[in-house]
């Protein structure tokens, strides 16, 4: 019987060899794939085992990890609660990292990014506990606070840029939420908080400055139309253009585009381009838009950044001007109605470009990336996105926008001793189910000081905010922009 026993031992050897191979396959060949699989609790725990980088504004943290005594060694906290909710986003054991920088820069904050490779090696050699990188933001805490307070309990958004760099100085979206409960280690309360945030009226999880359903820009879009007109070389700010009380739209049966005050834009139904912008005459710009044509409008908008895929580093929903427009639709689009849709960030970029001699800067939120001991690892350098208009046209637009604030629709944005350049907007956006028109969104975009711009702002207050149907951008949105500008220039 010894021969078959020996043969049996080969079978045993084969059995064990298959086990050795399978084990090697799992623990060596497949290990990384298995490790990176979504839902791997060990990977998640490992990310909690090292200190996640902080998110800093003006040197103080708006999101940071503090030691925790339970199984997860670090607890994420948000010291300013709601103020930065859409900027930081949330970091949740159950729902992952998302909603803002926590999601967009997760690999840096968690320390997994390849950008930190060199640093990890150094840490390994020196025996330091590895930790994530911190992000210092471009946000100006005073501008952020001013924007938040000025917006108050109204729904809407405020975004402010440094025109010369594209650095985002304020990013406020109302309503807000407190991301701290989502970061709790008590998973039941996390689930409750998650429900609360996602079922809250007004959808606070959405960052209205860059995402969401986007807004019709209303009259603030007249800046783009004016830019297209000036850039065409056929107009100056002093060119006389027709501006009747109502503009009959071609190719339609009796559709009319009225001015808001139902009055003609100047004596005899004509005015200069400057006055048309100052008074925000719909008929003047509707007619202008039709003359320039849909292609010119779209091209000008694209130069300001419409349609660009931007990330700040959160992904920005591109603003759009419709592809196919007939003449009446072009007239509507020229005054920011029809299907023109924008983010507040885009409108701030329009103002910023005008302020910056026509150059659009790429907007960004992260000033620099720092190691745990606050050494700067990577610094964001400002980057030119496009030349929207020539410096000459930018100067002309600036003069027109100054006129809007000095004695036009936006006198509420005046700041003693500072020349503010701006443009109001009142955007209609459909009707309620019973047919009554919804109160329009109030818009204002501006920059200041006009001679040496330091800040460009866009403000939108949904449904006209408190002022209801009577709202004009100048009454509701302009004072908010003023307070944000004051917080930066009056120092």
């Amino acid at each position, binding site marked *: *019987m*010894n021969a*078959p*026993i020996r043969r049996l031992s080969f079978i045993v050897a084969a059995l064990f060899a298959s086990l050795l191979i*399978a084990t*090697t396959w*799992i623990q060596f060949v497949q290990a990384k794939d298995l490790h990176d699989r979504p839902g791997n609790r060990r990977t998640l725990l490992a990310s909690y085992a090292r200190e996640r980088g902080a998110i800093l504004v003006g040197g103080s943290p708006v999101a940071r990890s503090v030691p925790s005594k339970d199984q997860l060694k670090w607890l994420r906290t948000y010291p300013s609660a709601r103020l930065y909710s859409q900027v930081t986003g949330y970091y949740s054991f159950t729902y992952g990292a998302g909603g803002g920088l926590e999601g967009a820069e997760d690999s840096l904050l968690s320390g997994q990014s390849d950008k930190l490779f060199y640093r990890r090696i150094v840490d390994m050699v020196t025996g330091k506990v590895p930790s994530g990188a911190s992000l210092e933001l471009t946000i100006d805490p005073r501008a952020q606070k001013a924007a938040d307070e000025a917006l108050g309990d109204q729904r809407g958004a405020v975004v402010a840029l440094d025109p010369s760099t594209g650095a985002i100085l304020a990013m406020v979206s109302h309503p807000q939420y407190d991301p701290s409960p989502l970061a709790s280690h008590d998973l039941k309360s996390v689930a409750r908080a998650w429900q609360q945030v996602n079922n809250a009226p007004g959808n606070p999880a959405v960052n209205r400055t860059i995402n969401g359903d986007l807004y019709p820009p209303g009259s603030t879009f007249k800046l783009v139309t004016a830019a297209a007109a000036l850039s065409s070389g056929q107009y100056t700010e002093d060119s006389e253009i027709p501006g009747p009380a109502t503009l009959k739209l071609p190719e339609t049966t009796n559709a009319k585009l009225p001015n808001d005050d139902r009055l003609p834009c100047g004596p005899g139904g004509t005015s200069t381009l400057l006055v048309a912008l100052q008074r925000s005459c719909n008929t003047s710009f509707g007619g202008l838009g039709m003359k320039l044509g849909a292609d010119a409008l779209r091209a000008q908008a694209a130069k300001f950044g419409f349609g660009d895929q931007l990330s700040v580093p959160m992904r920005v929903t591109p603003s759009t001007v419709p592809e196919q427009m007939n003449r009446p639709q072009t007239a509507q689009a020229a005054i920011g109605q029809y299907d023109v849709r924008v983010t507040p960030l885009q409108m701030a970029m329009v103002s910023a470009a005008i302020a910056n001699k026509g150059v659009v800067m790429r907007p960004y939120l992260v000033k620099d990336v720092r190691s745990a001991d606050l050494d700067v690892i990577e610094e964001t350098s400002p980057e030119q996105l496009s030349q929207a208009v020539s410096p000459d046209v930018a100067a002309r637009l600036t003069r027109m926008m100054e006129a809007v604030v000095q004695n036009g629709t936006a006198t509420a944005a005046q700041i003693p001793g500072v020349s503010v350049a701006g443009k109001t907007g009142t955007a209609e956006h459909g009707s309620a189910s019973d047919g009554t028109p919804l109160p329009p969104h109030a818009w204002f975009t501006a920059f200041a000081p006009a001679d040496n711009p330091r800040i460009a702002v866009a403000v939108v207050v949904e449904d006209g905010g408190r002022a209801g149907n009577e709202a004009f951008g100048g009454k509701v949105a302009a004072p908010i922009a003023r307070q944000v500008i004051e917080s930066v220039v009056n120092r």
Partner: protein
Amino acid sequence: MSTVTSLVPRTRRNVELGLLLLAIGIVMLAYLNVGLAVQGTFPPDLLGYGLGFLVLGGGFHLVLRWRAPYADPLLLPIGTLLNGLGLVMIHRLDLAEHRTGGGMAFKQLTWSALGVIIAIAVIIALRDHRQLRRFTFIAMATSIGLLLLPLVPGLGRNINGNRIWIGLGPFSFQPGEIAKITLTVFFAGYLVQTRDVLSLVGRRFLGIALPRPRDLGPILIAWLTSVLVLVFERDLGSSLLFFGLFVAMIYVATERRSWVAIGLTLFCFGAYAAYLMFGHLQQRVLLWLHPFSQAALQVSDQIVLGLMGMASGGLFGTGLGRGHPDFTYFAESDFIYPSMGEELGLFGLFALLMLYVLIVERGLRTALGVRDGFGKLLATGLAFSMALQVFVVVGGVTRVIPLTGLTMPFLSYGGSSLLANWALLALLLRISDQARRPVAGSVASTASSEATEVVKLR
């Protein structure tokens, strides 16, 4: 080469003592490691446990010196090491799950002590393994009884979908573990009687010698029994183990490959038919082939969790107490292999598997060395059942074969498993004592032929 083994046989008991002390040392080190990693303190009961281990292992060692001086010197240290490492892992999981009052580790320790005592009793009571041959048919009756026990209403317990347990007061007991030994005894006794008939009669077909149809009886009965176990107790693992064991032993007894062919054909047929008929088998196959699919994850994510645990261990492991083996269900029983893999790494698992390889190799070597047919078959069966069981368990968690519910010998939590495996080890020790013992009067001549062949194996 033959000159090497025809020297005066040595008992090698001192080697055994040295290895035993090494094994206990490794276990104590692992226990200390867990204490320092999890609680940050020197475990105060370290010395107590060390002494306890020493008393048990040392006691067994002394009994071997007394009653089986020529027994294989590797088996006891390996059994002690595996048992001890299993205890450390179970203790470590107790800490992770915050189980108080000694936890599962204390129960396991009690069972370990009982297992060693039973093994000692086997060595003392059983002077010669050939005595067992007298119990061939009693062993058969016992096996059938043990296999059927879980089906008895009131006694059987259905735990986790497998009806392979019986309840005795607070304890649950898996009689299948004991049946593994009694069945081996029965197979060995039966086959040694009938091997001539089974191996010589028959005709050749397509180049292989086929048995007579009426001689197919035993293999059909074995096949039917394993299918019944599969169907009524839903125990795929035991079914596979019993049938594989029988086929291996009938092959060794008859030296005819046709039995393997017949056995494998029957097995494939039975397995496929069962797969078509039973939903839980289809689920097992789904979990085996596509563990990450949505459909599989809805059934169970146990395999996936085990795989992720092993993956996080990598080559060197997280270190005892530093991983999260507690994320996986049954981390201390069916899934103790991934638990070990997570904390000891690929190299740790290789070492563990090699320990089992050594036990099996020592068992097969004993089978080669022992002079009587019954002893050969018994040792082969016991060793092969160990190999097959390890293959079924580890193959299940590493996706070589579908996952079935069996315990890892010596390592897994479970009283019946520990008792059975210590008894199995005692039987192997007893047979190896016979195999290596010089025959009175003619030392040189008898140690010759068989033992020389052993050397060729290397």
